């Protein structure tokens, strides 16, 4: 008797009758990578770790039921948000000559591309991050990476990019944006991110 009473709601879940009103769905990112999410409600927790893993967050009791959402339900019920997704930030890596704020010739085209992207985007926010070699002292490296970042910012401004949307960061011994121990040329660089 109990099984027969339960069957209709089981069937409902299996035929994919749309997503719950309150729901969290895990999606792969644009590169196909999947992270993980943890949902808390009251004292309960649900973990999502696979693409389209989802959970009904309507009540604490529904949290234990992690299911796989239908892609078609996701696309239709989240159409507005999915349509309005901002594009990923554009990142340009610019390499420098050793111990200098002179751009490496191989990076000149990339600088031009960064400038074009900065000027061609309607809503822009830019960060210019200076990295430095692992060789040399930290003080020397910090100063050099700052000067490199400044020279890139100056180049952007000289070509008409507004200065007030550009934020500079540079190598400092503990800056987690800039890990150490990476091969030389890669470290003699400034990264321009255009959002």
């Amino acid at each position, binding site marked *: 008797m109990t099984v027969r009473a339960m069957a209709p709601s089981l069937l409902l879940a299996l035929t994919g009758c749309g997503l719950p009103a309150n729901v969290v769905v895990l999606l792969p990112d644009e590169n196909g990578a999947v*992270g993980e999410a943890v949902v808390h409600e009251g004292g309960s927790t649900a973990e999502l770790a696979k693409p389209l893993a989802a959970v009904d967050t309507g009540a604490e009791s529904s949290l234990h039921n992690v299911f796989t959402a239908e892609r078609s339900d996701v696309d239709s019920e989240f159409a507005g948000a999915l349509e309005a*997704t901002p594009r990923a930030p554009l990142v340009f890596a610019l390499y420098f000559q050793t111990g200098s704020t002179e751009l490496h010739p191989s990076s000149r085209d990339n600088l031009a591309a960064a400038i074009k992207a900065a000027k061609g985007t309607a809503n822009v926010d830019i960060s210019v991050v200076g990295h430095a070699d692992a060789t040399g002292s930290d003080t020397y490296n910090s100063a050099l990476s700052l000067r490199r970042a400044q020279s890139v910012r100056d180049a952007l401004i000289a070509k008409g990019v507004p200065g007030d949307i550009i934020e500079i960061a540079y190598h400092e011994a503990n800056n987690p944006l800039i890990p150490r121990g990476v091969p030389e040329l890669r470290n003699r660089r400034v990264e321009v991110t255009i959002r």
Partner: protein
Amino acid sequence: MTHGAAVAAAALAMPVYEHDRLETGGDGECGITFRDNTRIALGPNSRIDLQQFVFKPAAQQYGFILRMAFGTLEYISGLTEKLAPEAMSIETPGFTVGARGTRLLVRAEK
């Protein structure tokens, strides 16, 4: 978009600040890119408050709390989640979501 006491229609390229509120109507939708590369998008009939946004990697200070009152939200993680996942959360009246390097959809009913 509500910033302090001022309420205005959101426009492309409008800067957005900590404590601002964003609300979409029946046919509205909008997307925001944050300084730490996090991206969000709101579907129609949604409201969120940018409860907290602190991103200072050099000082190792991070805090990113989105409070969604209702609606549909897409979230794509950025550097805060990479560098300090415990500092990032999405809160709704009924539940809270924390994540690690990922992309999420959240819907909360009014």
